[in-house]
């Protein structure tokens, strides 16, 4: 059983909800983001999303845009991301790692090679924001071959017809984007999100995680009433930026993650 499946199964058995935490690889530096990454599981992260920085992150708000550019300026690359996953796996074999980013760097790396290398490094899934189902076969097929889940985004604009298209080849879990907007901007309307998720649940058995616009432990607690997991990204990235020069950065982020986990 894949790590993603296993983790959701365990959570379900224990009647708990999942916490997905996002950090950008290489921000504020390769070493510091690795030290934060290593501290995440113990502080309460059930899943970890690692942002693969890209110069033109068109689905991201200012927090993740800026962190991507900082990471690139400090030399992060796709190879660097995979090295970070390898280093993390030397101390953790349990927590699922999901790589999140945009298609161009992967395409440039060579899609098949990247899938093989990502699986070898110990990644479990991928979220590629600018690859809708209509265009994803060239990535999905090698991903499946390498044993990686391609996690699909469902949004408030995804109507019934499209929902079928989106879930047709989905695996791992579904990522419900709770707002029409970019990451870390608006706050979600929980009633609206609840309706959509209830509908999605009638169409698939896959777990549903909710993300975009979830900032505080209260937000996370509310969303967990209706979803299997919540994704917190921009507010962690923001916190990392504010404390990037603090020697206790990993501990500060660990505290934030613990507060989120305790709330859900």
């Amino acid at each position: 059983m894949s790590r993603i499946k296993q983790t959701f199964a365990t959570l379900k058995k224990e009647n708990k909800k999942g916490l997905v935490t996002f950090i950008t690889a290489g921000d504020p530096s390769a070493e510091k983001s690795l030290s934060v990454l290593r501290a995440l599981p113990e502080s309460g992260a059930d899943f970890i999303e690692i942002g693969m920085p890209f110069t033109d992150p068109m689905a991201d708000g200012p927090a993740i845009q800026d962190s991507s550019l900082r990471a690139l300026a400090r030399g992060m690359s796709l190879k660097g991301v995979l090295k970070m996953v390898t280093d993390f796996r030397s101390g953790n074999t349990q927590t699922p790692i999901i790589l999140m980013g945009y298609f161009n760097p992967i395409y440039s790396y060579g899609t098949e090679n990247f899938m093989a290398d990502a699986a070898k490094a110990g990644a479990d899934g991928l979220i590629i924001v600018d690859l809708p189902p209509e265009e994803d076969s060239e990535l999905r097929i090698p991903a499946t071959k390498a044993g990686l889940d391609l996690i699909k985004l469902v949004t408030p604009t995804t109507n019934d017809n499209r929902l079928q298209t989106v879930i047709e080849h989905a695996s791992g879990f579904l990522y419900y984007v709770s707002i029409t907007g970019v990451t870390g901007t608006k706050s979600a309307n929980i009633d609206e999100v609840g309706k959509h998720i209830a509908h999605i649940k009638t169409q698939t058995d896959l777990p549903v995680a909710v993300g975009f616009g979830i900032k505080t432990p209260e937000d996370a607690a509310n969303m967990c009433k209706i979803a299997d997991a919540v994704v917190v990204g921009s507010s962690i990235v923001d916190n990392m930026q504010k404390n990037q020069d603090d020697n206790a950065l990993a501990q500060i982020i660990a505290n934030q993650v613990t507060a989120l986990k305790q709330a859900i």
Partner: protein
Amino acid sequence: MLQKVHNNGLQEDKTMTKAQKIENPNSFTNGPDENGHFGIYGGRYVAETLMPLILDVEKAWHAARDDQAFWDEFNGLAKDYIGRPSPLYYAKATTEHLGGAKVYFKRDELNHTGAHKINHCLGQILVARRMGKTRIIAETGAGQHGVATATVCALFDMPCTVFMGAEDVERQSPNVFRMKLLGAEVIPVTSGSGTLKDAMNEALRHWVANVEDTYYLIGTVAGPHPYPEMVRDFQSVIGSETKEQMMEKEGRLPDSLVACIGGGSNAMGLFHTFLNDTDVQMFGVEAGGHGVDTDKHAASLNGGKPGILHGMRSYFLQNDDGQITEAHSISAGLDYPGIGPEHAFLNDIKRVQYVSVTDDEALEAFKMLAKLEGIIPALEPSHAFAHIMKIAPTLPKDHIMVMNLCGRGDKDIFTVAEKLGIEI
């Protein structure tokens, strides 16, 4: 009998059924396929939030394309508001000076707002109105597309928001003022590198957050399907007029076509109607900046590689890690690190030859055209003219060339003066 739908060079497509198209694999005008692909290029690489909207735009555009009333409205305004058809002008002094090929200019710089951009702005705002959208957003680099968008928004009384790189807002203040006079709101974009590509990212982000009421009026033959096809079809009025005018003047087709390429809208507009006339040679002229062997140019085909950005697969300037790099050109309108997907396709199948011209060569051509013909061109078509200056002397006198003079140079006099070290 065939229905003459409109005069934009699309009659040809209308006369072919789908089956006939497939039986005619040698046609260069089949693209894009139903998913918006030109060969491996094009497509719809957007976030899921935008997908339903992109599909709506496609549906509305295809319905409009098949509706005579839509083209009647477009053609009426193209004639009386834009001033179409634009003249096809025999450039006698140029021809004599260069001493080779016979050179014609397609005078799209005489359009209202001074460039070809108004053609696709008019077409797109009519589509947006049919969709029931109530506000328009656009990106702009130099400000030409922003001014043309603000113009049609004023004409149709629709609110208009233009995203412009903060650096470009500084460099192009006359156009910022024009947009504001026309009633548009100009938002300086500071994210990323604060230039055209970031303005496009920001427009896409804004669109994701305002999908209900907003139409994104893209300024070139780029972006996700159906934009490359739609913008091309609105711009192909340039080529179909040229064909008709050339038949009147010379009784035959031209031997070669020359157009500058940033995103590629004016070139696609000139080329498309002629793609199946395989005796007509075509040159797309990219902005070579300081030279394509330096890191300061905007030649995506000559100096980039295939990739995915802004909703499409095409050629992009990028580093070994697939990170998009900055474009550079003396001409702000060519200063884009990508190119429309149909050009990428035409490049790979070698139907069009893509060459490049440096900043300095374009500047020389700018000065030469002003003196020879009494026409101050924009820096964009100055690139096309620089290529003509290179090849026309080597060609026989019965070789007929057409260059798309796609914009006038009023907006560029400050840039040129600065480059020449002259204080205005």
